[in-house]
Every structure is written in structure tokens, then in C-alpha cells.
């Protein structure tokens, strides 16, 4: 089930046996064949083969990667899947892009997503939805829909997504691949187009725990350009070492696993999925792990808390799209006052973005700030404290990667309350800033997955655990 594509390629190359053009050629072939139907890429870079050097010894030399289109790439169009940035060509690179380039990786294109990362199904893109490679009628999950399908359909072995409220992990779950939302502050957001800055992180997506750890080892680490990054973390080599290490099942022995009943007993959670989840847990238990159940009432309202914070921050972060310094404009620059012009230009936002901005502006306005925003931030503290308490008694929280099977592409997302059961386990990691790794446990039929939530800065543990679980589930 899992494919160690990149790690194996590197080993092969080290032994002198790999064709350096192999992965890129394969990528172009797959993209040409599949992208017209899957709609994974918004922009494709066509000239990568000219840039490969046989002598290049960088760790990711010759490895193609797909990058979500809300991560800025110098001289390569970056749209956020929005008409507002339809023709936007950035003048600088995101830190993660710089780090990928330094490692020799080749950005093959920019992937489709929900507009400004706002959406659950990948359907709010101004460039049309991405299709799920496992089943064309399913949503691929959002918002990193293109990045997930790029990996699941073998267009690229690696991709970068961003995760504000499950945007890496939900598509990972629905496409049967691996995705990590890092601890807040572990990966630089410099160059990530903001949606809700206190919640989001860029993260790796791949088709095995090893490749996931390897990509993470490249992008992680303190960045002087992002004031929220952490500077006392482990060295990058620690993670590449894990990537190449043999899995060790002994990590499971004596492992204390927290299970949150509120997520599993939710009326909207799918019985099949929850049943399958318990089966998955039993396999871990069989290897010597102990399962401890918790119930925390406030966890049922995680999505509501999340949306108040996310809408508020979004309304602030998206104020800059007015059509003056950047972005599309429909209003004339002369004879129209700025307020009329801005309001006209901002009509280019899609519906999902508009309604979130409007509600967010309202939440922050006089008389409502304390009632909504203040309350949400206090509730967020409560969620954090409860989670820390659980992690003090256990090693890891495990939840289903998705509490429901992939939703159909046509699913109506106007009423977000219907997604409560799906959102809650994922958004827990964003509210708390904790690292969360989603990995497949079954791909045949309806994809099944689990989410591992660890303590702050415990990515090394999550990768090691995922590599062990990978063995159990294969």
C-alpha cells in the first residue's frame, strides 16, 4: 500500500543505478495523461527536464514535487485558486520553496485547491474542482485537493499542502495517502498566502511515512522571516535519518493511546467508518498498545470555535485584495473613488470567501468582538488545556482520519454545521497547534485512515510511529 518512492530513488541513485530523469519523465507522462480529467494543476512548469544535472548530489535532486497554489513561487503564477489572483506572478519565493530548491527538488507545478484554502471539498476553486483519483464521483477533500491527488494518482511522489483546519489531512484521508500538519511554528509560513494565520501550517504529503519524513526534513525549521517559527527544534537531519531508518514495531509496545469518544459517538459520524476505526485500533492493541477512552464535552464545539477564529482572521488577512498593488481589477483606476473601486474589485472573490469575510468582519466589529472572538479564544484555551491533560496521561491521540466516507463532489456545503463530525477531530490540531499525521489503513473500496495527534514538537515520534503502523496495516 505505501510506496517509498523517493527514499528508494535516492538509495538507488546513491548506488549508481538510478536514471536521474526517471521521476520527472514519469511525472510529465502521468500529468499529460491524467490532468485533463483530474484537474490537479492550475499551472504546470514545462521545462524541468532541462534543469536536471546528472552530477547533482543534492538529496532531492531529480525529484519532482507539486506545490499548493497558495505558496508563492517567484516568477511562477500563484493564484490561490481565485479570480482575484488569476494573473498574479509573485516577485519572491516562499521559504519552503527556497528550501526545496536548495535540496534539488523540482517544482513541477502549482496545484488546485479551494479558493484561499476555504472549503472542505476542493470545490470552491475558481478553476473548477479536482477529481478524486480513487473515484471520480467523490470529492478529493479540501482544501489541498490538487496536492493530494497529485500524489494519489502518481503524478508526483511528493507535494506540499497547507492545513488551516484539516486541509492537508482530510484530502490525505480521502485519497489514501500520508499527510502531516506540523506543530505550529515548525514550518515557515513566509510565502504562504494567509487565510487564518494562528491556525495554519504548510505540511508535506506523500505516499509513505518515510517519504513524508524526508520531505518534512527539508522544509522544517526556524526562519527569521516568520516571527512565529520555533528555534529550539531538533536538527533537520534527525528527520531524514528517520526517513531512511528501518521501521521498529517495538515503539507500539506499552504505547498509551487516547481515543476521544465525542468524535466517535457523534450522530453524524458514519457507523461503517467508526467500526472500521475500532478494527484498526485493535490491530495496534494486538501489538501491545493500551487504549484509554476520554470524553471532553467542549470538543463537540471545536468547529464552531475554529470558524469564529478563522473567519475573523480571514476578514483581516484578505483586506489587502483591493486591486491596487496586486491582483485583478475590474474597476477603473481613474474617476472612481477608492471605496467604490475596492468594493467592485472585491466582487471577484468567490462565494465561500465572501461569506467568510463578511461574517469575520462582523465578528470583529463593535459590540461583537468580545461576544464571539473573545469567547472563541477563551474556549480555544480550554480546548488546549483539555488536550494537554490527555497527552499527559497518554502518548498519542488517535482519531479516524475521516469520520465519514468521501462526500460526493456535489455535496452542498452551505450549512457548515453538517460537517461538524468531520471537522472536529481535524480542527483539534489547529486550535491547539499540535502536530497531526494522517495515514491510510486501507485503500481498497472506501479509503480508511487514522489521525495521530502528538505533543508539541513530537514529529519525530509521529513519523517513527507511523512507520511502525505502516507495517501493521500493510
Amino acid at each position, binding site marked *: 500500500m505505501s510506496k517509498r518512492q523517493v527514499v528508494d530513488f535516492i538509495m538507488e541513485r546513491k548506488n549508481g543505478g538510478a536514471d536521474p530523469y526517471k521521476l520527472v519523465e514519469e511525472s510529465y507522462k502521468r500529468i499529460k495523461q491524467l490532468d485533463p480529467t483530474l484537474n490537479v494543476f492550475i499551472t504546470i512548469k514545462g521545462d524541468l527536464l532541462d534543469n536536471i544535472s546528472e552530477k547533482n548530489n543534492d538529496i532531492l535532486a531529480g525529484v519532482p514535487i507539486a506545490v499548493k497554489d497558495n505558496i508563492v513561487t517567484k516568477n511562477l503564477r500563484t493564484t490561490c485558486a481565485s479570480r482575484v489572483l488569476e494573473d498574479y506572478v509573485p516577485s519572491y519565493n516562499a521559504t519552503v520553496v527556497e528550501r526545496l530548491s536548495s535540496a534539488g527538488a523540482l517544482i513541477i507545478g502549482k496545484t488546485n485547491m479551494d479558493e484561499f484554502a476555504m472549503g472542505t471539498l476542493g470545490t470552491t476553486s475558481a478553476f473548477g474542482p479536482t477529481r478524486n483519483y480513487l473515484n471520480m464521483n467523490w470529492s478529493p477533500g479540501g482544501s489541498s485537493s490538487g496536492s493530494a491527488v497529485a500524489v494519489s494518482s502518481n503524478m508526483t511522489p511528493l507535494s506540499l499542502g497547507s492545513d488551516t483546519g484539516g486541509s492537508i489531512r482530510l484530502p490525505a484521508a480521502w485519497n489514501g495517502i500520508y499527510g502531516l500538519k506540523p506543530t505550529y511554528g515548525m514550518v515557515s509560513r513566509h510565502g504562504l498566502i494567509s487565510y487564518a494565520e494562528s491556525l495554519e501550517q504548510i505540511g508535506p504529503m506523500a505516499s509513505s511515512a518515510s517519504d513524508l519524513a524526508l520531505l518534512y526534513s527539508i522544509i522544517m525549521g526556524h526562519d527569521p522571516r516568520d516571527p512565529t517559527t520555533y528555534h529550539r527544534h531538533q536538527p533537520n537531519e534527525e528527520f531524514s535519518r528517520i526517513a531512511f531508518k528501518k521501521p521498529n514495531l517495538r515503539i507500539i509496545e506499552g504505547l498509551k493511546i487516547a481515543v476521544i469518544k465525542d468524535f466517535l459517538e457523534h450522530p453524524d459520524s458514519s457507523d461503517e467508518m467508526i467500526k472500521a476505526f475500532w478494527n484498526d485500533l485493535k490491530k495496534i492493541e494486538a501489538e501491545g498498545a493500551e487504549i484509554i477512552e476520554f470524553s471532553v464535552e467542549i470538543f463537540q464545539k471545536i468547529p*464552531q470555535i475554529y470558524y469564529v477564529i478563522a473567519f475573523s482572521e480571514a476578514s483581516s488577512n484578505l483586506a489587502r485584495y483591493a486591486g491596487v498593488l496586486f491582483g485583478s481589477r475590474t474597476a477603473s483606476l481613474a474617476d472612481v473613488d477608492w471605496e467604490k473601486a475596492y468594493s467592485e474589485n472585491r466582487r471577484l472573490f468567490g462565494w465561500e470567501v465572501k461569506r467568510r469575510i*463578511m*461574517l469575520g468582519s*462582523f465578528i470583529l466589529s463593535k459590540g461583537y468582538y468580545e461576544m464571539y472572538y473573545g469567547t472563541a479564544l477563551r*474556549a480555544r484555551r480550554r480546548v488546549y488545556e483539555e488536550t494537554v491533560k490527555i497527552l499527559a496521561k497518554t502518548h498519542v491521540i488517535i482519531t479516524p482520519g475521516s469520520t465519514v466516507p468521501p462526500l460526493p463532489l456535489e455535496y452542498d456545503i452551505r450549512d457548515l454545521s453538517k460537517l461538524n463530525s468531520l471537522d472536529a477531530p481535524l480542527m483539534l490540531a489547529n486550535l491547539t497547534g499540535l502536530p497531526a499525521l494522517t495515514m491510510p489503513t486501507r485503500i481498497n473500496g472506501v479509503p480508511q485512515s487514522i489521525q495521530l495527534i502528538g505533543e508539541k514538537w513530537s514529529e519525530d515520534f509521529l513519523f517513527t510511529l507511523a512507520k511502525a503502523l505502516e507495517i501493521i496495516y500493510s
Partner: protein
Amino acid sequence: MEKREIKIDDELIERMMWLSKLRLDEQEREKIKEDIRLLLNYISDILEIDVGDAEELLYPNLSDNVREDIPSTEEKGREHLKNAVLENGFVKAPKVFKGE
């Protein structure tokens, strides 16, 4: 806090549009009213949470990153303004006076 009824009328929508500088046409206004009602009803659930004396949590990571006062050697300037309209090096923007 008590769950408080917020009246979703034309006035409120007008205010939201003004705050966020978004213009909607008639049809969209009716649609947004319904959406705002749905979303506001949903997020208002948080008003039932007993937050006690919990302090606000906005920053998951309390890093203390500041910068030394050293000018960059990188290129600065108009290459960052390729998406704007320039006139004599200035960025062209709509007029600021709203009267006639």
C-alpha cells in the same frame, strides 16, 4: 454568555458589506442573508461554552523572534510592483475624495 438573537436584516447585511468592502447585487443579498443566518446560528453555539476565567489563546507558539536593525542587501523596489500600474514610479490608485 446567553445565546443572543441577532436580527439578520438588510441593515445588517449593508453593514457587513460596508465593513468588508464587498458589494453584492440584490439576488446575492438574499442568498447571503440565508447563509449568514445558517453560519451565525452555528457559531453562536460557542456562547453556550463555559469558558470560566480561561485566558485567551491566540498564539500556539510563544516565540520571541525579533530582528536586528541591519538593512538588507537584497534587491528592493519596483520588481515587487509588477502587478501594479505605475506612473513615474508611483503606484496608481483610485481617488480618495468621495464627493463629486
